[in-house]
């Protein structure tokens, strides 16, 4: 069976929802910088994302930012603007959500309390689930009544592609019809500290969630994109990343029967060697880090969203292909090849 993306949404520094993201991609906009802690840091933050304003007061007392970003983005795909549940996302829909360490802030706050309170167990039990890595996926399931498989997936910058492949396998093995599949990352001072300690400065840190609705098999409408191939490799040394990515790309074309010559767009997660993939190829090039900052675990998902956004703003009479790449510093390398139907095919 083919995997078809029938809808998507994104929350990022470019704004809340698909239209805001699409408009900014069309204009090749870069999200605004915001002054942040740790002072005098700067990051690309989701504007005006107050959890209680976005999601209401009920059930949000202990909700952390990464969870709220995922719950809000999933909400865009589960319900229409009128609050009605979409007919093609039933209660048995699956959720596959990518994350790195969920909320660095939640995890560190909880650990801090064990060291600073009068007793080491004077921690807020209600926030304990926030320190567990599946918190955001679980809350998406609870808040949106998604009773199918509920998976959390992690693999650095390649997380969004790993989640996509996990979701494909769920569908192919008959374990899920509709799947909400995406990846999320939050900004916090804690994440900035950890990132600052772990790596040399790169793109400004960003945050957000990009999520895709994978249509159930029985839905034979053409959708926004077909996932033709998802390929992975591991490179032992950073110097080998370009070659590893090249292998993935070759395989994706071979598996799909498509020709690299016809490739329309290449979107990268912002990792090493990604800019050099298919060097000299005239395809349109996008980088999620340029658009929304470095969203780490969500960076490949945002690259995929950028392809979809650009495709719908620049529709053509012919079907096109697009490549999404990811190279993570821990050695995971991957790519996804998509087919974007022609204007006539698209709903």
């Amino acid at each position, binding site marked *: 069976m083919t995997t078809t993306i029938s809808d998507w949404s994104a929350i990022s520094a470019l704004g809340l929802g698909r239209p805001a993201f699409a408009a900014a991609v069309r204009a090749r906009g870069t999200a605004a910088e915001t002054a942040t802690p*740790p002072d005098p840091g700067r990051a690309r933050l989701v504007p005006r994302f107050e959890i209680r304003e976005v999601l209401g007061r009920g059930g949000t007392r202990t909700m952390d930012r990464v969870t709220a970003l995922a719950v809000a983005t999933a909400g865009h795909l589960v319900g229409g603007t009128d609050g009605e549940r979409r007919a093609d996302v039933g*209660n048995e829909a699956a*959720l596959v959500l990518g*994350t*790195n*360490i*969920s909320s*660095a802030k939640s*995890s*560190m706050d*909880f*650990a*801090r309390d*064990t060291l600073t309170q009068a*007793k*080491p*167990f*004077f*921690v807020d*039990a209600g926030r*304990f*689930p926030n*320190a*567990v*890595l*599946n918190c955001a*996926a*679980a*809350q998406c*399931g*609870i808040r949106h*009544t*998604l*009773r*199918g*498989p*509920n*998976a*959390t*997936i*992690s*693999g*650095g910058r390649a997380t969004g592609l*790993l989640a996509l492949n996990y979701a494909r*396998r*769920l569908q*192919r093995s008959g*374990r899920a019809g509709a799947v909400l599949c995406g990846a999320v990352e939050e900004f916090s001072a804690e994440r900035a500290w*950890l*990132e600052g*300690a772990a*790596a040399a400065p790169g793109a400004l840190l960003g945050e957000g969630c990009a999520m895709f609705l994978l249509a159930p098999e029985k839905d034979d409408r053409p959708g926004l994109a077909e996932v033709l191939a998802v390929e*992975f*490799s*591991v490179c*032992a040394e950073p110097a080998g990343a370009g070659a590893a990515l090249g292998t993935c790309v070759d395989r994706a074309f071979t598996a799909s029967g498509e020709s690299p010559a016809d490739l329309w767009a290449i979107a990268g997660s912002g990792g090493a060697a990604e800019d050099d993939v298919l060097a000299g190829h005239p395809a349109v090039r996008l980088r999620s880090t340029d658009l929304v900052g470095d969203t780490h675990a969500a960076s490949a998902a945002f690259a995929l969203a950028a392809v979809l956004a650009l495709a719908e703003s620049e529709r053509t009479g012919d079907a096109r292909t697009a490549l999404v790449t990811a190279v*993570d510093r*821990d050695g*995971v390398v*991957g790519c996804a090849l998509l087919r974007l139907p022609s204007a006539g095919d698209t709903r």
Partner: protein
Amino acid sequence: MVTGLGVISPIGVGLAAFAAGLRTGRSGAAPVRGFDTTGFEHDIACEVPDFDAADWLQELDPADLGRASRFAVAAARLAVADASGDPAAAEHTVARLRSRHGLIAIGTTMGESRDIDALVAQELAHGPAGMSPALARRINAGRLSVSIAHELGLTDVEPVTVPTACAAGNYAIGHGYDAVRAGDVDFALCGGADALCRKTFAGFYRLGAMAPDRCRPFDLDRRGMLTGEGAGVLLLEDLESARARGARIHAEVLGYGLNCDAAHPVAPDSDSVARCMRLALDDANVEPEEVDLISAHGTATKANDIAEARAIRGVFGDASPPRTVSMKSMLGHTLGAASALAAIGCVVAIGEGFIPPTINHEETDPECGLDCVPNEAVEADLRVVQNNALAFGGNNAVLLLGRYEEPS
């Protein structure tokens, strides 16, 4: 086909020690040594004692890995060695895996949470600038799986970490099963890993979910869980690949089921758990009466054991549900490793023909109403075994394993 098993557990490292521990009902409970427990009124947990990653790692420097990744990588090494039969042949097996396309799927609940605890302590003492770059580089959850690729020199693999909390082991095994069965990959190294840490201990302690001394699943006087740690990794191959290299087939994965209660962050929903078991039975094409043994999630909290037992009786009937044991009575709750270690325990039970006991048992809670095989292992001819996992967030994953029989 399950062709390799690697175990790092509180009751034994390596398959033989683990199997012996299960057979003799060994307890992994002891006072915590891994972090300071001053201020807690009790300090019993199930750590992996005296674990030195350098004993197992051949390529990677343990200093580059957090404790959970060390467990995962060591367990993967052990799984490959087990799959080779003769330890001297392990290098040959690794070379074979390198030439094939594979999946590495490792589940976890907390990732490298112990390192995060250490980074917080550094931050409190010296400010953010005092945080160790070496530790900060170790914490990404993806490293639990990709480090196995680096250690074994595997490049043609898809390394994915599956942090679906305490159902993560079964989730990862299921993912490996689907990938192998669909022909996407030739092999899968899959399982789960977690390292005990102070924040997890404090969290379960505060929830009132932790026993002061012993873990007593399904007992009338059970007081809760004990936290644990470790890793379990299984090598899955398709039958053809296993036969081609003359592998010993320990057992086969028959199928599995996944669902989400979508109700409460920490309390299980027995109807939903029952639904998950039915999904797994259907997927495996197994009738409830064919199940010879259930390896329960069995945390020994009041709520879990009653909800899980109710779900089991709902699916299997009140009259004579299968014998249902909790290996957590011996291992503690090893979180992301729990269902992977229990799955390996199931494979051992099938292969060696015994049921691991539920230890520390005095009187079965009538509300649970299950035969939990108290205290002593019993001999049994097991063909189909079910392995339950229930997680925070209402994430359920149920795996069915069966004895492999050569077609006659």
